[in-house]
């Protein structure tokens, strides 16, 4: 009943070549005896080595336990944290390692090490079993009429196919009822919202922004929010503020009024996958995203000059209020951050 494994008749060997005139397999080499098999003194030595490893392990476990109490953590003292961590780690590590080394040494030098040979059998079950299995499947079909009674079978398939539907639908309330596509298109910025320093929230006067400087900016009212609400708004509203020489800015005519005296504000959320575009190179007027190195040219409305991003950073139109503070003229006029399917809709 057992199939021959290598017999080309029973299994197709495809394009494999069966040697016609092979050199004979010389068979298993003779077993090599170890010194520990022959010399009782070596054997005794080996067993002492094994026991020593296990003793080291015991000592280390006890040492770790003692160290836990003897070298505790003193609040606010990082040195004690480091000491406790190292002592515990090294002691527990050595305790475990020694068990392993002892066991390995035991297996290698003392346990009987003759190589044994087992036969392999084909993975498949034998013909008889297969026949019986096929017969049972057949009976299952005939006795239930699964293929014969098409109406109930197909109705069952339909019922099973629909049954996970509620499970999928019930995932809807993982998030609030709002339409995410609407949320993604608005931020906290609105007309008259003051530009403020991140994270303190102190508003910025146009006169504070010296030539060549850059500010990390949040809406002034952001700090009135807390927790997740604050983070969600901040994730969309962060802005970079820079002052360039007005003649360096190559502004589009329709955006002429969006800057103030060479001061421009752009979204700090990368249009690639959303990291904060945090690095400003004053000399070149380039903004660099540290995540995947997309680079934006501030002089040309932050168009992409390098890296995987596709779109320029959105610009926030700014002006100054009566007290000389920088304010937004409105919200961003396009969605900030990474692209999404319905972005242009």
């Amino acid at each position, binding site marked *: 009943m057992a199939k021959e494994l*290598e017999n080309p008749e029973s*299994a197709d060997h*495809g*394009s*494999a*070549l069966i040697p016609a*005139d*092979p050199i004979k*397999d*010389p*068979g*298993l080499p003779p077993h090599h005896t170890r010194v520990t*098999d022959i010399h009782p003194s070596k054997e005794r030595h080996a067993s002492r080595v094994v026991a020593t490893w296990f003793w080291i392990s015991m000592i280390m476990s006890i040492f770790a336990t003692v160290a836990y109490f003897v070298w*505790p*953590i003193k*609040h*606010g003292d990082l040195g004690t944290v480091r000491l*406790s*961590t190292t002592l*515990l*780690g090294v002691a*527990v*590590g050595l305790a*475990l*390692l020694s068990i*392993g080394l002892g*066991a*390995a040494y*035991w297996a290698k030098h003392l*346990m009987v*090490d003759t*190589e*044994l040979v*087992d036969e*392999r059998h084909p993975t498949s079950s034998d013909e008889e079993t297969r026949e019986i299995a096929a017969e049972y499947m057949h009976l299952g079909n005939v006795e239930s009429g699964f293929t014969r009674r098409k109406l109930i079978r197909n109705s069952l398939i339909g019922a099973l196919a629909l049954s996970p539907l509620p499970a999928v639908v019930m*995932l809807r309330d993982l*998030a609030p009822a*709002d339409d*995410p*596509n609407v949320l993604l298109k608005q931020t906290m910025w609105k007309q008259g919202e003051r530009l403020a320093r991140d*994270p303190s929230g102190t508003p910025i006067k146009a006169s504070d922004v010296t030539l060549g400087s850059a500010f990390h900016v949040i809406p002034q009212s952001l700090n009135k929010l*807390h*927790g997740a609400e604050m*983070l969600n708004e901040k*994730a969309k509203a962060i802005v970079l503020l820079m002052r360039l020489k007005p003649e360096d800015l190559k502004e589009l005519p329709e955006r002429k009024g969006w800057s103030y005296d060479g001061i421009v504000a752009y979204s700090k*959320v990368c249009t690639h*996958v*959303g*990291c904060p575009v*945090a*690095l400003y190179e004053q000399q070149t007027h380039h903004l660099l995203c*540290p995540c995947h190195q997309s680079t934006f040219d501030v002089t040309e409305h932050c168009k992409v000059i390098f*890296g*995987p991003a*596709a*779109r320029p950073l959105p610009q926030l139109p700014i002006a100054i209020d009566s007290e000389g503070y920088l304010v937004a003229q409105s919200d961003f006029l396009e969605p900030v951050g990474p*692209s*999404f*399917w319905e972005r*242009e809709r």
Partner: protein
Amino acid sequence: MSQTTVEPERGKLDRFSRAAASYVDDRTKIGVLVKEFGRKIFPDHWSFMLGEIALFSFITILITGVFLTLFFDPSMAHVEYEGSYLPLKGMEMSAAMASTLDISFDIRGGLLIRQVHHWAALLFNAAIGLHILRVFFTGAFRKPREINWIIGFLLFVLALVAGFTGYSLPDDLLSGNGLRIIDGFIKALPFVGVWISYLLFGGEFPGDDLVGRFYSLHILVVPAVILLLIGIHLVLVFLHKHTQYPGPGKTEKNIVGQPILPVYAAKAGGFFFIVSGFVFLLGGIFQINPVWNYGPYDPSPISAGTQPDWYMGWTDGFLRLVPSHWEFVLWGYTFSMNLLVVYIVAGIFLGLVALYPFIEAWITGDKREHHLLDRPRKAATRTGIGAAGVMFYAVAWAAASSDLIATHFHLSLEGVTIFLQILLFVGPVFSFIIAKRIALALQKKDREIVLHGSESGYIVRLEGGEYVEVHNPIDDGLRWKLLSYHSDYEPWMLRPNAKGKIGFWRRTRAALSRFYFEDRIEPVSQSELDAARHDHKPELNTGH
């Protein structure tokens, strides 16, 4: 002492273990299992330990993970940090971050266990990767082990998921930025992207749900699936019996090695302690993921040169390698090809990895079971393909550090990126050619050794004045190993099918078969060996 100590000495221990064994057996019939598996043979080779490292680091992860759950608070509710790390005292942060700091600074051994957990996760991913490579290069994925290959592949993917979800839990600046990237990556998907992100984060990014959700994935769903798959993986290993490397006396129909009881149990059991002990030493000595240096998540700050955990690197590298401006709008919808192309490329790469056993089986048409491993040089084309795959992965991985490479070697970032973009496609081709040529050269050398023995380095002058090198005869066992008759294939002949037609698939298969096997180095036959022996001048055969 003696090699045949099978007769157990009867003693107290023996009586006790008999009693215990029969108590358990009376109630469970466990004897059947012990009889079946107790003396099952396992072959020994260092490369078989890679899978064990993966398994044992996973167990270490489970044990340390349980400890961490006792102290970690998976909540994004905002609290004021009141622990003993002074630089962050009084700061607003999520409870998750605060409890991570408490584990690190206020709980004895907490930092150690956190670091051991993290190191073990890095090792788990590395060991899985190396294990997959071992299985690939030796052809251990062939029938009957294709399903186990798929399971191993799923484990590779799940290890990434486990790593990433865990990495995100502390809610620190670094993990938050990682999530930000995932969020943007998901949003690029047509139709569903925005919705998946919205539902995953429980609203807008970052929201206050994600840590709780990732927590149940990380400590329940993902490990449960991993455990289940590991279970099936090991059951199949037992069922198939382990593969073995070719050697004298080793055939497709036998398995040579040492029994589970006692040798393999001692070695594998001991190895668990070696792996976990090693990881504890790492965790005790080397700092990893110091979240207190990054601070709590805030969408605004980020530091240059931050790196994801190593196993996520290749995905991040793909994101970086896409050229600018790959996005277009059609019918009002945005196609973010700069990200979609990453889905496509990574998907194709993973798909090819997962399906490789079936592709190769189709090309060879070989339906036999294979339990003898290939020496990588004997399967030269497969080895070349593997080298190409490794190169592809490696370039993507290196690309995740393109900025560090540029600053470290004082190169321009543009230059490094363009170089890596080209290398991503050219590199695999070169690795394929080089690896395949090396494998074939080694085969040729083996053939020479089989025929003429190994080079001795001695040069002698023959009577005729001719100089030749003396070759030492090799022993039969080594010769047999070098022969490897079992890994010898030839290209298909393109023949019409029963209807007398040559269809597209036949043509493709024949072409692929030629690509695989046309550079074939014929193994030495007995008559060839006899002829070579005959040719040898007597003084050459004596060696020195």
